[in-house]
């Protein structure tokens, strides 16, 4: 019996204490995870007490247990949604057959790739954000950053659990490599390009949690439909945590927007920057940047990989239940493609268009968030509207990648693009300005000049609450 690992140290609902294979794998992996966390986790905050939420069980009362904890002592757990007896595969070629509790051999590689690609983003984002703690705009935000970080860590555990339990030696090797790659490292980069760019300041962090984590939500949602039941159950539990990350992003930007509006009204000439705020046009540029980087994460518009994963019953659509038909063999998807410099509509076989189907759901969800920011602007009595750019704008993957489009989606020449780029995307000056605002504000209840206070505290705590004990 393991002396290192126990159900108490690692909260779980997968019978860890009686699973020798999992124990053996985790005993080797867990110390390496901690080494990784110390090296690549939040810089400078490993000894402080942080008011964090820990999932200790999957019951309604158990998933949100709040207490002070030092991050390296955080109890990263392994939780799957409880199994639904009699669940059948909901889509694809195997629709109606019982879900798999073990990995079908012929789908092993595809499944492993899906899990590794998803799993790689979790530690990557922790690495991208590791320096942000140095410039937190408030203790409240600092705590939220760490909550996001530890949960990304837990999501890594969730994926590692699947690799360890279902993929034998290969799985153990992949799990180790998840700790071996480093965001932005030339030699050992993270798998997806967007996860190799550092998150250099808090505006980007909020945009990341708003837009990039939302990609994660949709990927998890599609995987939560999986015919491989342990994956589906894992992802369903992860979705509850992902929602918090998007809350951090959406309310974070909302507070920056609110502050911008307040400062516009304060300054005689409406100059937000003069009063140390982030003006709405700059926010729009960062929105353009992060939204489009995140659109790329869904993959190519026309994708045989997406078709294969769907056909195999491994990755479904968001809320597969709400669709009437689940084989999707004869349907097509109207897609706007660029032909000879013009946008034309083309029907694409639905299965190969499933990345785009998922992306379309995501876009709707993003639009709802942006609308809530616009509501804040209206409530402040300011005449300005934030908007999502076209899904063709500033793309690096897929059918629009090699062409240039305005935020409105009109095709333009490279020259026109270059001439207007500074109006559409953050410039070096914008970046320098935003960075210049990033001074830490660590007194309980205080906020940096560029962000409004949150509407309410975490777990009902008062404004002055000491979310992170800095001593």
């Amino acid at each position, binding site marked *: 019996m393991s002396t290192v690992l126990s159900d108490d140290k690692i909260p779980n609902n997968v019978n860890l204490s009686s699973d020798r294979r999992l124990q053996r794998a985790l005993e080797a992996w867990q110390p390496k995870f901690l080494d990784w966390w110390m090296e690549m986790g939040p810089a400078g905050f490993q000894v402080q007490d942080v008011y964090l939420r820990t999932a200790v069980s999957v019951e309604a009362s158990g998933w949100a247990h709040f207490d002070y904890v030092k991050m390296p002592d955080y109890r990263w757990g392994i939780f799957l949604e409880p199994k639904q007896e009699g669940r059948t595969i909901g889509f694809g070629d195997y629709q109606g057959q019982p879900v798999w509790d073990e990995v079908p051999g012929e789908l092993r590689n595809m499944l492993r790739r899906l899990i590794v690609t998803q799993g790689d983003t979790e530690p990557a984002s922790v690495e991208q954000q590791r320096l942000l703690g140095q410039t937190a705009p408030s203790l409240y935000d600092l705590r939220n950053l760490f909550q996001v970080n530890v949960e990304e860590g837990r999501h890594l555990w969730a994926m590692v659990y699947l690799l360890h339990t279902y993929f034998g030696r290969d799985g153990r090797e992949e799990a180790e490599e998840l700790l071996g790659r480093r965001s932005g490292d030339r030699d*050992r980069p993270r798998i997806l390009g967007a996860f190799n760019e550092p998150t250099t300041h808090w505006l980007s962090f909020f945009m990341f949690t708003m837009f990039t984590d939302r990609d994660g939500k949709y990927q998890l949602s599609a995987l939560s439909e999986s015919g491989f039941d342990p994956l589906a159950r894992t992802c369903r539990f992860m979705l509850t945590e992902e929602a918090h990350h998007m809350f951090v992003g959406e309310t974070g930007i909302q507070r920056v927007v609110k502050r911008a509006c307040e400062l516009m009204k304060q300054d005689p000439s409406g100059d937000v920057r003069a009063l140390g705020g982030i003006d709405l046009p700059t926010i729009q540029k960062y929105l353009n940047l992060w939204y489009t980087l995140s659109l790329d994460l869904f993959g190519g518009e026309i994708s*045989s990989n997406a078709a294969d994963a769907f056909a195999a019953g491994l990755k479904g659509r968001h809320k597969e239940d709400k669709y009437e038909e689940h084989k999707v*063999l004869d349907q097509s998807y109207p897609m706007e493609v660029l032909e000879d410099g013009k946008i034309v509509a083309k029907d694409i076989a639905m299965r*190969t268009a499933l990345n785009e189907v998922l992306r379309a759901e995501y876009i709707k969800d993003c639009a709802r968030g942006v609308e809530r920011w616009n509501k804040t602007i209206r409530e402040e009595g300011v005449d300005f509207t934030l908007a999502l750019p076209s899904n063709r704008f500033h793309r690096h993957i897929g059918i629009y990648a090699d062409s240039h489009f305005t935020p409105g989606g009109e095709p333009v020449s490279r020259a026109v693009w270059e001439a207007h780029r500074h109006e559409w995307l953050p410039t070096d000056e914008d970046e320098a300005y935003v960075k210049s605002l990033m001074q830490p504000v660590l007194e309980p209840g205080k906020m940096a000049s560029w962000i409004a206070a949150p509407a309410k505290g975490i777990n009902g705590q008062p404004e002055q609450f000491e979310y992170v004990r800095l001593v």
Partner: protein
Amino acid sequence: MDPISFETHPDRYRHWRLSTDGDVATLVMNVDPDHPHRPGYELKLNSYDLSVDIELADAIQRLRFEHPEVRAVVVTAELDRVFCSGANIYMLGSSSHSFKVNFCKFTNETRLYLEEASAESGLRALAACQGTTAGGGYELALACDEILLVDDGSSAVSFPETPLLAVLPGTGGLTRLVDKRKVRRDRADVFCTVAEGIKGKRARDWGLVDQVVPRSKWDATVAERARALAAEGAALAHGPAVALPALAPTVEADRIAYRYVELRVDPATRTGDLTITGPTAPPPAELHAGADGGAELWSLRAFRELDDALLRLRFDHPTIGVLRLRTRGDAAHVLAHDEALARATTGFAREVRLLQRRVLKRLDNTARSFFAVADAADSCFAGVLLETALSADRFYMLIDDAEAIAVRTSSANAGPMPTGSGLTRLQARFYGTPDDVAKVLARGADGPIAGEEAEQLGLATVAADDIDFEDELRIAVEERASLSPDALTGMEASLRWVGPETLETKIFGRLSAWQNWIFTRPNSTGEQGALTLYGRPERPAFNWNRT
């Protein structure tokens, strides 16, 4: 469809960039997705089709003739995280069987040329795989002397053909894996069924690549290995450089004409006539003398033309099943050219002979029935041209009273033009009576060998006088043209390569034959086959019977 041109030039490459720096050349694959060989698919992710491979073949050829100072070529790519993803699957899926087979044959020949350049000309090749190296991409790397793979945690070498497409890595990949790199066969078995491939340390430990290199050390390591490889071949003679001019044939519907080679086809009878004209004068005292620097030397020009004609025959005239192969000219000039090449010590002369050798192999490998025909007084099956008759499936000679129609041997028949099996064509011909090789060469040294004697010696299949000859040949050709082209391909391929197996014969025999069989099977190319359905919403359905 328009005839395919196999001629190109680095100035016109769309898919590769060739540059040289001292004794190291760099060949960068940068496939232009929008210019495939024919419309209907995009060449994404450095996938290749015939247009890409024609440029590769051209580049290897030009390095040998035009850049003899180059001792090592780095084959690499510039695409982010992708070296080469292999033959374009949509191209394969939408191609006719005949095109697929000939495409694969051409790509196989090109890869063998890389290996030949290393073995015979000291031109080493380094595959610098800076990203994903899949399928035909890895097969290209396998044809190089050394493989470097970037160690970035994700770039792998892979053979996804079997698990993803239900076909084989048919460009020599399976053979080179175990025969050339000597990867243990059980590991090769695992490797060939893991679609995503193997990366990093394991790829090196299994011998799939020679070295894995982190990105930060990539450029320096590639440069260092290229220099080391270049040093290996430095002792061989090289040059002088000769620029290869365009052949610019006249192409008509039923005729392709070059300066020395003419191909006429008659679709009605499914037959053709391939005629090679010998040199019109003796060779210059120095082979690379003259304004052209040797480019117009008959030995080079005529064989480049024959090469081009064979490729056009394969791709553009699929129904022409039987070819009468004739030579015209002064046999003495042919022999003089052979001997001048044999005497010369320049790298250029060596390259000309190696080119002749490659073209003769391409003739061996052309899946059409060839009947060599010596039926006129100016026939000149001498030396290197006699090799074409020995390559042919049969050799018909007219017996004339003056004995003007005769064959002649030269040093070209005694070793420098081996077939893929490593035997000379005479050794292959007299596989059961090896002493006859020396006998024929000794007799040839004494002068022309006319029809009757050639038949007795075993050089001519049939020698007949003017009363019988015409009918003999006509009936043989008509009969041949009536037989199943598939059976003939298999029959000829089995008979042409007598003797031992080599990497080359295994690739063209075993691997290609299995691949071509699989290409016609429903599990790959049927309506529900994996190749057919690749990229489509449906998934393949297999017939589970094993043979």
